[in-house]
């Protein structure tokens, strides 16, 4: 008996379950160590922002909360459950953000941007491109972190596009914008919540009868994402964003390679030149972007989901992925944000450009969904 008990102990000691526990513990320990090292080296705020990014990435990947996929589900199957979750998360953030912004205007800022020709066109193109790669701003980072090959190819071109779009932003904006008029205060919050309710009602009416639901998983995801987004606002002083950080990564490389960015109206302006001179480890959106990738990786590794083979896709699909990546980056700068910076953070902090972005990007998505099979991007 004692001999058998010893064998059992040995089996447990070397069992796959035990090694999984060790592997998962090591993942969490590594993530926490990175947060603490960054906090010690650069400052507590930056460590906290990386932690928020980890949380966002883990939540989006772990609870399958996204933007491009739910919009596709609505367009193809009239399933609005993911969109209901997005609207719920935005409403939760707005409920906290409006009073915070009203009472702390000097310390906190909203994602407020003007509506204009280029803004609307940018959102429309972004909607097409995000359906081609099935990943928006946050989605591309999360998908890359979980090893999705389409996202891995699209991501560097997304960054290049963001850099170029920002470089040309002044010219595009000069085509025409309407004056900034953000919603604020109790009345602004009331209008925003009512509009979110109306949007939900519209999708409810348009939905297939069997799909009129909001699963508990998505309710939890919406609540966690909202909590982290409010945390981003409180810690950073600005709402959650994605695309500025990606463009900044390329701007730093271009600057170091000898490209004269001082002559560029955007990258040469004092605020952005300062960001280029400082480390990415002190840039708000760069940190949450890195956290999104890391958080998604942790969940994918936790689930042992990294062994999936990379699918074989035709050259046309890879070319479309590269082009869509560039378009995602370029268009999101013209649109003053992606699904996160414009749609999620814009609406939840009272910017009307978030609503216009929503309509234009959804219209683009309808086209993007139809283009995907034509570009041989559907799985075989």
């Amino acid at each position: 008996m004692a001999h058998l008990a010893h064998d059992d102990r040995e089996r447990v000691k070397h069992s796959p379950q035990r090694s999984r526990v060790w592997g998962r513990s090591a993942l969490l320990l590594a993530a926490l160590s990175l947060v603490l090292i960054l906090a010690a080296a650069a400052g507590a705020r930056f460590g906290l922002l990386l932690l928020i990014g980890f949380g966002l990435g883990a939540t989006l990947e772990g609870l399958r909360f996204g933007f491009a996929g739910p919009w596709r589900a609505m367009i193809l199957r009239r399933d609005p459950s993911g969109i209901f979750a997005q609207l719920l998360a935005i409403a939760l953030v707005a409920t906290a953000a409006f009073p915070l912004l009203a009472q702390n205007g000097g310390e906190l800022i909203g994602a407020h941007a003007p509506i204009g020709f280029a803004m609307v066109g940018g959102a429309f193109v972004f909607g097409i491109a995000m359906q081609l790669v099935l990943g928006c701003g946050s989605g591309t980072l999360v998908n890359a972190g979980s090893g999705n090959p389409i996202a891995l190819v699209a991501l560097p071109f997304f960054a290049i596009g963001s850099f170029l779009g920002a470089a040309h932003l002044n010219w595009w904006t000069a085509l025409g914008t309407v004056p900034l008029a953000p919603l604020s205060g109790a009345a602004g919050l009331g209008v925003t919540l009512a509009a979110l309710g109306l949007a939900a009602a519209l999708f409810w009416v348009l939905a297939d009868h069997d799909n009129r639901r909001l699963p508990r998983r998505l309710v939890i995801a919406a609540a966690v994402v909202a909590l982290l987004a409010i945390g981003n606002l409180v810690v950073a002083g600005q709402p959650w964003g994605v695309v500025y950080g990606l463009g900044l990564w390329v701007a730093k490389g271009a600057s170091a390679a000898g490209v004269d960015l001082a002559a560029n109206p955007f990258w040469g302006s004092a605020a952005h030149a300062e960001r280029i001179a400082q480390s990415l480890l002190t840039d708000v959106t760069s940190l949450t972007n890195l956290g999104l990738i890391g958080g998604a990786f942790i969940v994918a590794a936790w689930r042992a989901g990294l062994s999936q083979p990379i699918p074989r896709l035709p050259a046309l699909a890879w070319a479309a992925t590269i082009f869509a990546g560039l378009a995602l980056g370029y268009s999101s700068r013209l649109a003053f944000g992606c699904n996160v910076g414009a749609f999620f953070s814009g609406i939840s902090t009272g910017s009307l450009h978030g609503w216009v972005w929503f309509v234009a990007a959804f219209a683009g998505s309808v086209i993007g969904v139809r283009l995907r099979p034509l570009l041989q991007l559907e799985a075989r």
Partner: protein
Amino acid sequence: MSLSRKHGVIALFVIIAGLLAFDLSHSAPLDPFRAPAILALGSGQAASGAHCAAAPGS
């Protein structure tokens, strides 16, 4: 040998590590003693980060 997601993630992390190493060697040094307060809320400091929604010149 067929490529899996694991290989893609390894390549991504190598690139990110290279980006950060390059960044640290080409940027102002990190200084935790000159870092902003842990929370912007209540810090008395104006928000200074860059955001994609910020219009040119704002």
